[in-house]
Each structure stands twice: as C-alpha cells, then as structure tokens.
C-alpha cells in the first residue's frame, strides 16, 4: 500500500538530498503548556510522512503551524527552501484536508472544489477543466451538483481531498484523513489515497493517532510523544527496531521484559530477567553500561508455543494458557508464565481443522529466536 521502495524513493538515506520541508527547532507554547517541544524534522519531496501519536501529543499543532494557522513560539519552517515566517495561510503553497472535511454546506461539490481556484482569479474555462479533471481523479463524476449533505461519508472525504489537491499545492496536510470512515471503507480509501499521491507526486504530511493507518500509508513515520518526535523511520524500522519502550508499546503489541545486563559482548548480550524467569539472549550488541536495567521487547507473532521443552537454555519460559481469542486469520494466546507475568502470543491459523490444538489451562513453553528481540534502554 505504501509507496514502493524503488530506487531513489528513500531520499532520507541520501546525505546529499535536499529536504523539501524543513522544520527547525520548532517550539509552540500555549501559555505555560508546551504543545510542540523543539521539533526538528526533514520531509522530502514526494513523501507520505505520517505524524503518529496519541491525543495531545502535539501532532495537530505541528500540522497547523505548517498550514499557518498557528505561529511557532520559536524555530523556523521552510517549504521548498522558502521560510514561512509571517506568510499567512492564504499565501502558503500548502493545502489542508481537515478532519471534519470542512466542506462548505451551501455550495455544490463543484463549487466546493472550484473555491480555491476562484481565489486565484483563474479564467473560468481553466477552473472548469481543472475541477472536472480532479473530480474524475477522485471518481466523483456525476455528483457535481450535489450538496455535501447529500453525499455519503466516503464521498465527502473525496470531495475534501479533491478540493485540497486541485490547487496543486507543494504540500498537502491531512488531519486524520480516514478517521470518519468505517473500517471497510478505510482500507479501500487508503489504497486510493496512495494511488492519487503517486499519480500527482504531491508531498503529503498525514496526522493520525491510528498506527495501522500510519503503517499502511506512510513512507516514513514520525512518532510523537508529549510534544517531541521520539523516533523517525520507515514503518518497518519503527515496528521492528523501536528505540524506546514508548515506541515499542505504541506501535502494535509487544511483550516487554525488564532485566539486568549480565554479559555485554559486541555480538551479543545476555540479560537476566526475573520478569521472564530466565535469561534472554540477544543476537546483537547493545551500547550501555554493564549492570544497567534494560528491557527486551518481543512481538507476539515472533513467539512460538510448544508442548515440548525447546532446546537451548535461553529465550524460553514455561507457563499456562489462560486465554485464547480466535480472530479468524490468527489466534491470540495469553500465557501466564511461572514468574507471574502474562505474555501475548499470536499464531496464524494455517489449517482449517487442526487436531490436537492447544487449549485452555494447558502447560506450554514460550520461546523465540535470538534475533527476534529488541533491547531498549529507556
């Protein structure tokens, strides 16, 4: 769904690439409250960049500063090399798709989409052609004369998208673009949004609290917490290599074991974890002080359940299955380890009829590969 990682679609890895949008040490305070705290961020041309975070993490404030509705308390924003200080929203090469869509209720679909072009005082013919073109891109042909209240939620979302794209902005800001749609429509719309973005080549910055939305849309994700960006990376990086407990727990599910580093070698670490009731062996080095308290994070789908004791002496623990949730494509097992900790393990339902299936209150072993865990220090 997300932009394919072709050659040259990862400009953030190229040290010579010029960022298209540059956010430099931007801070925004509302009175004493720091909404955005010293954020520095580069976004490259043609990216779909997702700002992901819970409510009140400052992601919307950051978006509103890009649109020009809020002024940074300190720091600067550049779009295509031009500083945005003192540039009012109506003069920025930026358009926004609002969470509520903010369609003008007294105007038809056509008038809504044409509104931005009319402000540019373009010739009537050009406006008509561009509106028609944009409406066909978002597949709204035939609905030109409808008013917003005569449209379904999905159609409104597309009108809002068309209205914000028709001005050919350098940057499109999307505030929870799929938030108001139901689940089936969301998945469909995610595809469409990415297709349209690839076709028009506009840079997108998307704000969302929904990690699934971020994972499917984004070329890169910036995870925000309490006004700061805590990690920036591709969806894969963010999911597989979270840099903190916050990111690991915010994206997807994770089993987190607290422990103390026993052995700290360049190629591996061992962690003694009373939380697990055993020793964790991690197949990569960690740069931290010996005896430091660390956390090992293991995703539920990377854990294996078995009746027999797995070989080796690390990365395993025994426990009792307390709960099973059948989800169709996979099943979730909650296992209570002998240490008292509950862990979450998922297992794909590969076969329709599985005989000798694990069941409630059964004693099992939980284990994982040495390359599956990630060590985080904060």
């Amino acid at each position, binding site marked *: 769904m997300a932009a394919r990682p072709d050659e040259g679609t990862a400009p953030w890895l190229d040290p010579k690439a010029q960022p298209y949008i540059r956010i430099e040490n931007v801070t925004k305070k509302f009175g004493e409250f720091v909404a955005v705290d010293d954020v520095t961020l580069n976004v490259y041309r043609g990216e779909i960049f997702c700002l992901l975070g819970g409510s009140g993490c400052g992601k919307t404030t950051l978006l509103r500063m890009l649109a020009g509705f809020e002024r940074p308390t300190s720091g600067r924003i550049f779009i295509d090399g031009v500083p945005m200080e003192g540039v009012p929203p109506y003069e920025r090469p930026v358009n926004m798709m609002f969470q509520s869509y*903010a369609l003008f209720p007294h105007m038809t679909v056509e008038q809504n989409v044409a509104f931005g072009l009319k402000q540019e005082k373009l010739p009537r013919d050009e406006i008509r052609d561009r509106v028609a073109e944009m409406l066909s891109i978002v597949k709204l042909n035939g609905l030109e004369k409808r008013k917003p209240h*005569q449209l379904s939620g999905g159609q409104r979302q597309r009108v809002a998208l068309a209205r914000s794209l028709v001005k050919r902005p350098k940057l499109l800001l999307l505030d929870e673009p799929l938030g108001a749609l139901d689940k089936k429509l969301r998945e469909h719309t995610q595809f469409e949004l990415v297709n349209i973005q690839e076709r028009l080549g506009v840079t997108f910055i998307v704000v969302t609290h929904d990690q699934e939305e971020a994972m499917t849309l984004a070329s890169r994700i910036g995870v925000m917490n309490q006004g700061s960006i805590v990690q920036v990376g591709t969806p894969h990086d963010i999911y597989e290599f979270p840099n903190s407990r916050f990111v690991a727990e915010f994206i997807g599910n994770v089993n987190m074991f607290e422990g103390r580093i026993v052995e700290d070698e360049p190629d591996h670490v061992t962690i003694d974890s009373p939380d697990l009731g055993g020793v964790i062996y991690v197949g990569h080095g960690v740069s931290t002080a010996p005896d430091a308290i660390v956390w090992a994070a293991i995703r539920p789908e990377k854990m294996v359940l078995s009746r027999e004791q797995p070989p080796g002496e690390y990365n395993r623990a025994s426990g009792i299955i307390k709960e099973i949730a059948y989800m169709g494509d996979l099943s979730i097992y909650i296992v209570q380890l002998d240490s008292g900790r509950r862990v979450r393990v998922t297992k794909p339902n590969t076969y329709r009829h599985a005989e000798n299936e694990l069941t409630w209150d059964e004693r099992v072993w939980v284990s994982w590969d040495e390359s599956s865990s990630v060590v985080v220090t904060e």
Partner: protein
Amino acid sequence: MANPSYVTLGQRILAGLDKALTTVMASPPYRWSQGILRRAGVTGRTLVIAVPWVWLLIFFLIPFIIVFKISFAETRWLGSPPYAPIWEWVEGHALHVKITFANYLFLLSDSLYVQAFLSSLKVASVSTILCLLLGYPMAYGIARADPSWRNTLLLLVILPFWTSFLLRVYAWMGLLNNHGVINQFLMWTGIIDEPIVMLQTDFAMYIGIVYSYLPFMILPLYSNLEKHDPTLLEAAVDLGCRPFRAFLSITLPLSKPGIIAGSMLVFIPAVGEFVIPRLLGGTDSLMIGRVLWDEYFLNRNWPVASAVAIALLLLLVIPIVIFQRYQLQEASGEQQR
C-alpha cells in the same frame, strides 16, 4: 440533522415542545388522567395538542372574525355599537344581510391610508436594515467571544426587557428633548449654542424603533452564528481566501436563515408600531398604527378601523408565508439524503 446551522427557529421550538410533551407524558398524574380520558374516548395526545389550538381559537381566531365582520359593516354615527349589524331579522321572519365593501374602497380612495401604509412599510424597512447593520456585528462579536463571556453579553442584550417598554421610550424622551441630557451635554462642551431639535422627529422615531427591536435581531442571528463551524473559515483561508472575503463567501450566506428570522421579527412589529412614533416621532409622522388608533378612538369609525387592521394583517401575512415556504424548502433540502 447533519448541519445544525440550518435548523430553523420553528424546528427548535418543535423540539422543545416535543421534550416538554415527553416529560408530561411520563408523569403519574398524566397517566392517571389519561386512563379516565381513554375510557371517555379522548387520548391525552389530542388533549395536549388541543391546548394551543384552543388558545389560538379564543384569543386570535374569534377576535379576528369579529374584526373581519365589522370591516364589512356600515358605519353608524350614532348609537352603540357604532356600526350597523350585518344581519338582522326583519319583522321576525326575513333575514336581512347587509355587506359593504365601502370601508375597503374608502381606504383606497383616501390617499391618507395608502400613504400611511407606504410610510409604515418604509419606516419598518429602514428600521430593519438599521437593526441588521447594527445587530449583525454585535451578534457576530458575541458568537465569537470567549464562551465564558457569551452568556454575560447575551444577558446585556436582553437586560432592557426587564424594564417596561414604555418606561424606556420615556427615557429616550428625556435624553432627546431640547433640555435633555444630550443637548445639555453638547451645550456644556460648547459644540453647539442652541439645542438641536431631536424629539418629535423621524430621527428620534428611528432611534426608538431600532433601540427597542435590536434584541429581536441579535438573538436569532446569534443563535445561527454561534453554531457556525470555525474550521469552515480556516478551510476558506487555507484555500487562498483572505479573511474578509471568507466572511463574505462563507459566513454571510450560511447566516441567511438567521438574517431572515431576525428581519421578520423586527419588520413585522415595526410596521404596526404605534407607541414609538406617537411619543418620539413628529406630529406629521404617518404610521398605520397611529391611523388605526385615530380611526378607532377619535373618529369612532369602527368599520374603517377594522378594514385598516385586516389590510395590515394581509400585508404582513404575505411575507410570513414566503418566509415559511423558504424555511420548509431549506428543511426538506436537508432531509434529502
């Protein structure tokens, strides 16, 4: 309702009535009495709906019919009542009906009445426009004010109603007359040497009408503007629209129902206004309300006075019907989903 800015005044009143109805119907005395009524073949719902009907019948329809009837009677200069009966039993067995259109024709023949109607419409229109020009920024200001201030500001708008209307008009007389506060102040500052004649002029009359009816303009406008979604304006500005143009192309058209409701509430009573022109306006100010009064109490010509009243009513009913139709269209457009 997807867009609350289109909810009409009527719909809001209906919603309120509906809520009241539900509360009443849940109460034990109601259910108890309903049991009795049902045995008598009357449902409680009919009874509740009947209350406004009965009210309108007694206090509006019946007086209207009486006035309507008198307007077709002949004037009788002596005796009481001062009009000839429309039907009479002649010698005990023949029904004698006498209907005359002379009173209505008289209204047309004497230019005084036509002029009074026209000048009333003019005064009401000018007052409505002045109220709109003054009231719109005030309503907008209140709607955009900090929520903690809004109720206080609204209270200030309504506050004058807590004093008698007549008293407030008299207060204006005190302010505007030749030895009044305004003239004395201006003379004290030396701006003028002689008092400006303000009382008994059109100027004073407009001040009185605009002052008295301004809240009726502000309140419906406020209730409309307050529900506007501020992100619509942000969206307009984001699409390259300067803030003032955004107001003209978004806020103004969306406040149309509020403008119409407020204008109706000012225009309709202003047409028939009697007290303010009488007390503040000049002796030559010709308002239909004043003509009506004179016709009734000075000339004691009840049939002509009734004809004036009926004509006035028709004059006002037409814009109300147009307004109603407009609101209905708006509402049915809203329901097309």
